[in-house]
């Protein structure tokens, strides 16, 4: 079952990376958002990954714990609750009484690099699925 459960593992990787990419894109889109429905500037979000056993609909409940492979999942979405960045812009509509505007603490360059990383990891998971499909097909070919 190693090969088939591998599909679940890589699928979990793809889901996790996609969730991470979505958050990064949201961060980038809101890098300058000073006003949110909850009040205050946009706060950066990050996904926390955790290792979790990959479930496969084909694996039986008798499959031992040792045999269950390590997939990944998003354990939590962490919101950056640090004090926002304050910039002096007295004319800004969201300026406070001292003329400071609260901006999100986001470094677009950093998140852009992270996004590239997420894309690359996503691609690696896709490659893994492709590889195992090939191996399964070759196993079937042993019947020819």
């Amino acid at each position, binding site marked *: 079952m190693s090969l088939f459960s591998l599909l679940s593992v890589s699928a979990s*990787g793809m889901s996790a990376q996609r969730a991470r990419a979505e958050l990064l894109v949201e961060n980038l889109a809101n890098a300058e958002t000073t006003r949110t429905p909850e009040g205050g500037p946009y706060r950066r979000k990050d996904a926390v990954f955790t290792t979790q056993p990959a479930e496969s609909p084909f694996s039986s409940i008798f499959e031992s714990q040792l045999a269950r492979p390590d*997939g990944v999942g998003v354990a939590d979405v962490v919101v950056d609750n640090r004090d926002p960045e304050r910039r002096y812009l007295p004319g800004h509509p969201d300026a406070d009484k001292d003329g400071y505007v609260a901006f999100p603490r986001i470094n677009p360059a950093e998140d852009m690099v992270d996004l590239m990383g997420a894309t*690359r990891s996503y691609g690696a998971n896709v*490659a*893994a699925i492709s590889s195992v499909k090939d191996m399964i097909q070759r196993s079937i070919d*042993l019947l020819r």
Partner: protein
Amino acid sequence: MLDGLAGKLEQYLDLLSVRQRLVASNIANADTPGYKTQDIDFQTEFQNAAAGLAPHVIEASGLTVRNDGNNVSIDRESRLLAENGLRFNIASNLMRDQIRTLKVAINGGSGS
């Protein structure tokens, strides 16, 4: 039936499957904090397989650990992914050949 070389090939295919599964887990957890790259000692496990022992998962050595405790190298895992796939390809072709040869051996006599 299919002992000897074919038996070894089957063990080889088994180990490659296990290794590929670990590679997939490593790739899926490439960004998980604290995750350490898993692997098997292929040569040792291949010898152990003859004795019928199940493979033993170990932590891969020689990898740099990043700030979040993760030491997965996508380059290494991608390379292993391709390599394992190729080896599986070769082994399964050799195996198919073994089976065919044996079939011919069995049926060839009936042509007389």
